[in-house]
């Protein structure tokens, strides 16, 4: 597997997870797979950061968890976005856009 990994800036993992879950409930493994795929194999989320992040988001009330059956019919813990999570996603998205725009301007590429 080619290693295109880059380090995620602080705080972006939460945004990525929320964005992924905006498409529908998923379990942890699928979340990391999906981020990997959508980012064209650039972003690889380590389990060591994924699960603490999921638990943190759950505690904040932005996502909630329930046990269900996976596609291969095994018991898995699915996470889904809550109402406040949806709001948080919107807020973080616009923050992110502002940030990238600003960074791009500074770098003189915008």
């Amino acid at each position: 597997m080619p290693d295109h990994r880059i380090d995620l800036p602080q705080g972006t993992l939460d945004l990525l997870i929320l964005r992924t879950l905006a498409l529908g409930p998923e379990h942890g493994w699928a979340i990391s797979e999906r981020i990997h795929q959508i980012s064209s194999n650039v972003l690889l989320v380590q389990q060591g950061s994924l699960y603490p992040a999921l638990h943190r988001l759950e505690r904040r009330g932005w996502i909630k968890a329930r046990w269900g059956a996976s596609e291969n019919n095994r018991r898995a813990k699915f996470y889904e976005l809550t109402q406040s999570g949806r709001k948080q996603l919107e807020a973080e998205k616009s923050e992110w856009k502002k940030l990238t725009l600003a960074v791009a301007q500074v770098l003189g590429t915008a």
Partner: protein
Amino acid sequence: MLSDLLIRARALFRRKAVESELDDELRFHFEQQVEKLVQSGLPLPEARRRARLEFGGSDQIKEECRDARGVSLLEALAQDIRFGLRMLRKSPGFTAVAVLTLALGIGANTAIFSVVQGVLLAPLPYREPDRLVTVWLNNFRLQSPTDLSYRDFLDWQLGALPFENMSAYAWRSFDLSSPGNPEHLEGREISSSFLSTLGVGLALGREFSVEEDRNAGAPVAIISNGLWRDRFGGSAAALGKPIVLDGVETTVVGVLRPDFRFGTGYADVYIPIGQRKLVDANDRTAHDVECVARLKPGVSLGQAEAEMNAIQENIDRLNPETEQGLGAKIIPAKEPLVGDVRGTLLLLLGAVGVVLLIACANVASLLLARSAARAREFSIRAALGAGRGRIVRQLITESVLLSVLGGVLGLAAAKWGLSAALATLAADLPRSDNIHVNASVLFFALGVSIVVGILFGLAPALRSARADLQPSLNEGGRGSTGGHHRTQSGLVIVQIALTLVLLAGAGLLFRSIQHLWKADLGFESQHLLTFQVGLSPSATKTGAGVRAAYQQLLDRIRQIPGVQSAEITTEVPMTHQVNAIPFWVDSHRPASVAEAPRTLGFITGPDFQQVMRMPLIRGRFIGRQDTIDSSLVAVIDSELARTYFPGKDPIGRTITFPQVGDYRIIGVVGHVQHWQVGFSSPFTQNQSYVSIYQIQDRWMTTIDTWTWVVVRTPLDASAVLPEIRKAVFGAASDQTVYHAQTMPAIVSESMSPQRFPLILLGSFAGLALLLASIGIYGVISYSVTLRVHEIGIRMALGAQTRAVFRMMIGHGLRLALAGVATGVAAALILIRLLSSFTHLLYGVGADDPVTFTAVSLLVTGVAILACYIPARRAAKVDPMVALRYE
């Protein structure tokens, strides 16, 4: 927020479930990964290996997940407590001093609170005590509630609409002659509904029936549990058995429960009040009955009083001669019991609160010094990312730990101190048998501990958390602590000021008692002995018999070697006997007896003035020539003479006691302190003396229950009393001697309103002085430690040892003087304020210069003493060592 709490709670209480879910989740991930790798063509063992490598340490992930879910609050608390205990163990000296200081403060507060709780706050031990009231006759002219007559009570009972139940009771003592040895017993006459009004049951038997509560009813009695066990061995067969009371065979129909209490006194025998002699029962001027009633639900005191006033107005109108000017007064049942001590107890609670404040200031000061030493620890923790809140929480946890430890120790001290204090002071307090360390006291101690812990912990904690990281990290651990030191100095000034306030209070009380002892009583209390005698029932059948019995009794007592003189009297000063009778002089008869002024009627023998050594101002005292057959004569005191014969000679004038007769005034004697030494009293001040040998037969036959013998003898009471008993039994074998007391003891007892708070306030002030001197010692000694370097330089530059010593003492002295000045100002305001509604001071002003000078000198002296040791240490600093210390 809610999800946060739920998840924290779940993490705490469903720990196992949460952990196994975490395991399942991570295993699922691992297996998915393995499956994915297998599908991409790897053999299973290789796929497993790769997945495991990618996965990293699963324990670490779990730990981080746990962190992400949040450490539960309780877990953090447990952590703080463990850490706090470790810190306290590491400095046992500090911990011991702080815990002991707090134990003293909290212990004293807990003890006083248990007294306040037991005496003032605890409800009376009756059914729905809030609805129980006492009903009094209100004499508008005398402006004071008084007992009522039984006749009034019966009329009230007929019309008493606001009450569910209404009962009368009167004090009466009995001579019990069988079964067992003859003994004088306190008792009550009660209405048949007395116990059901209170809502208490009997241990055995029944209440009196309405038929028994009438004139000529069968003689029946209810006895106390103690008497029942004493005389009947606690046997149920006591019911229906006779006891002989004042020579009358009386059937026991009920036994009270062991914990039954009513009023301030104790009583062993209860008989129906309706059986009193008709002449007494119908006399509206004989006010010897008290009344307890239960309000109907929802009726207020004001409503009840208005209704009762309307009834009494009716009685007034029907009996204008005696009743005009009377109304009703309703007072909650607890009030007459505790009203006198409420002010004193609240004062003591305030004083003991001040002691606690001083203790808190001490511990806060210690904590400040310690937090200065720990500044580096906090800086490092803050640098490592601990929030300010976290550090404050840690420090508060430590201080609450200290105070709870202090509270536990204090509770033990309170329990011990309370039983010691009650052993000596219980007699000065109403309801003292109700004082226990119970649940509400425990709750109080715990609450005080926690509040106090936060109180003295907060300032040092906030200071530490606010401290800048940089300086203390840079300073190599010898933090600059000017700020700490200023706060500490402030605390010491406050401590000294508070101590001075307490000392001034105790000092003023002490001076009051000094003055009270010197106060003129109007008689000589030294070498006086007093007691009562239950005359033989055979002697009290006729008036002549009683007169003869007394003469015979006194003859025998006077013959005892060492007895200088002896006489009988119905009133002994300061024993709370009230024979307040209406009177008028010459022809100034008021419209109604109720509106007549009152005088204390002393019914005595002719030697009374000589026995008491009262000054005779004019004329003569009653003599042996004044008998039942000669004309009625009376002696009045200087107070009555001044008020009713201003500037005139009262000798030969007439004083009239309604229903008794017109008396010719033959002499004036000095006023005697009858109520309480030194204090003006709301009660009757006029005094008059008539001869017991001129009292008519109808009163003579019952007079022995309120007659006392006074004996003047230089001998010790314990030596004379057996002789007296022998003489009394010699006169008649069925006579009893009781209530024997020396007059100095009675006088001393009358000072209990001052003595009780003096003893406690004095001990609190001593405690405060001790704590404050520890406080000032701590501050000076800490300042020496901080300034060792500076002192070294001074000495290296040639400063004399004495100059250094003076400098340190001067530092302490400045603090002490600032504290004294503040304290004097505070005490002047506070004590003036307090003395305006508690009548405790006598002979000294609230600003007594002697007291204030003495306590100021005492506090300053103790402060200098406390500075002495650290100042000596400063003077002994070796400049070389101090400079090398860097």
